[in-house]
């Protein structure tokens, strides 16, 4: 052990290797944030939630493929308890991950005044927002998309009509799923990080994210019910908003049986509300970190 308080001057070696500049700094901040959110290089407790959620999100795909395999030679062979469109809806559960991870990647930086050091590097506020939202979005996209890959490949392999036939029959899935998942990801990541950035305390940030979405659902529910089950009030249901866009991607229109089904220009309204939430979230974040890096 070195003596406490001692500084040992053992020389200094200049660094003459490669330097990546601002681009490398951005990628580094994104990578380090992804690593933190996934609990990598941290205690096992920090790993439980993200990896547990990934497993849970993948279970329906595995079960569906398993059932399809077991029933492939029976009259129930076409049974499928989950659709690709429905599976995107399951990804809404990743909001729980966002409520934990988004505060974890931004709150400690403010609480421990680490931003002073971050913005002493070749980064500015825009880089910070991009890296943090990008990190959460990357993980949410991965966790939402990976089960679809499992489902698609599994269904393809056990399809009674053959893998190639299944692939050609479901080519649309190859663009609809990533697009719908990306819309859901951008929405949850930007809104989640924005709410988390309002506080320096992780717990408060997490509770605020869940409360915002929960209260929005609770408020929208009765309003839509009073209006007969279909009303523009459904646009207040924040967790459901990206699912309306998912329906636009998969069905070309909002779900006719859903709360926007009977609303004129319901699809346009859903797009407008979605864009509004994402724009306000990113705008707030840019304002929140504006000037910190001198931009």
């Amino acid at each position, binding site marked *: 052990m070195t003596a406490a308080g001692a500084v040992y001057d053992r020389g200094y070696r200049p660094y003459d290797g*490669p330097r990546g500049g601002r681009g490398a700094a951005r990628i580094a901040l994104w990578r*380090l944030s992804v690593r933190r959110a996934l609990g990598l290089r941290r205690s096992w407790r920090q790993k439980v939630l993200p990896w547990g959620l990934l497993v849970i999100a993948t279970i329906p795909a595995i079960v569906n493929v398993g059932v399809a395999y077991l029933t492939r030679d029976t009259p129930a062979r076409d049974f499928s308890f989950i659709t690709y469109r429905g599976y995107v809806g399951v990804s809404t559960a990743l909001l729980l991950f966002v409520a934990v991870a988004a505060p974890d990647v931004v709150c400690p930086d403010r609480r*421990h*005044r680490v931003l002073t050091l971050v913005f002493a590097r070749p980064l500015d506020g825009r880089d910070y927002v991009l890296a943090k939202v990008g990190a959460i979005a990357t993980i949410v996209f991965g966790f939402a998309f990976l089960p679809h890959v499992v489902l698609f490949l599994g269904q393809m392999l056990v399809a009674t009509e053959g893998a190639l036939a299944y692939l050609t029959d479901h080519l649309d899935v190859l663009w609809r799923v990533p697009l719908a998942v990306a819309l859901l990801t951008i929405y949850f990541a930007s809104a989640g990080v924005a709410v988390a950035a309002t506080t320096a305390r992780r717990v408060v940030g997490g509770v605020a994210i869940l409360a915002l979405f929960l209260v929005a659902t609770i408020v929208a529910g009765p309003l839509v019910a009073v209006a007969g089950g279909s009303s523009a009030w459904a646009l207040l249901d924040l967790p459901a908003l990206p699912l309306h866009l998912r329906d636009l991607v998969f069905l070309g229109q909002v779900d006719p049986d859903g709360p926007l089904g009977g609303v004129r220009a319901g699809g346009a309204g859903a797009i407008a509300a979605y864009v509004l939430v994402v724009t306000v979230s990113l705008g707030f974040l840019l304002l929140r970190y504006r000037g910190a890096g001198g931009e």
Partner: protein
Amino acid sequence: MLRAERLTLVYPGGVRALDDLTVEVPHGTVGLVGANGAGKTTLLRLALGQLPPSAGTIEVAGIPVATDPVGVRARLGYMPEHECLPLDVSAADLVATFGELAGLPPRAARQRASEVLDLVGLDEERFRPVAGFSTGMRQRTKLAQALVADPEVVLLDEPTAGLDPMGRAEMLALVGRLAGFGVSVLLATHLLDDVQRSCDHVLMLDGGRLRHAGATEALLDRTGSVRVEVDRDAAELAAALARRGCEASALDDAVLDVVVASDDVLDAVRDAVDDLGLALHALSSRRTSLDELFVDAP
């Protein structure tokens, strides 16, 4: 290292943190001294591009900060005064992280982190979480993250705060050597002794204005007086010198300071001592301290 031209910063609310500061700071180890609120940290933050000036310009390493703050920061290291370390990571991870954020490849950042933590004396503690570190160890971790990317210029804000006397002396010795490694240092402190011990140039701020700037040696030689030590009757000797047209003041019964306005003054001292029958114990060129310079200067 740094050049400011009529640099002014007025905070919202009207507080004038820097007022028309024009200065050229040479490469080397430069002390930035002043009382709390003198504008030291503000000047560092302006140099980092973290604050836009209200007026004037500032350049660091030849780059105008206003036009390329990110480019400037790529060449700087910064050690803030306040607590700024994430507590739930090890020193090695922390320093490597800031190496990567400076643009170093991950492998190089870890290698550099290991080297600079060794340099600051945290080699064996580098895998411990920062939360368990003492104040002195945190100061050294802050210094390590400032040095990890081998900056051209490193801005140190009160680096000896919280260190014990031995740690402080060693930290100052290390800071004093950085210029020899090609790293220029701007050391902000209110401890004038730190500057006197480790810096070859001094910038002295007071109320946001420049009070002194120059080589430390030159500033310390500005007194132009000698200290005279005799066996007794220093007051009588001072009076005798005054009668010979010299400016002298007795500090106690055996010590007096005499202003050397010309070479004749030293002859006058010799003659007055002889006339009074005093024993001359010592006569030395008196150098002021930065404290005196700071307190006495207009």
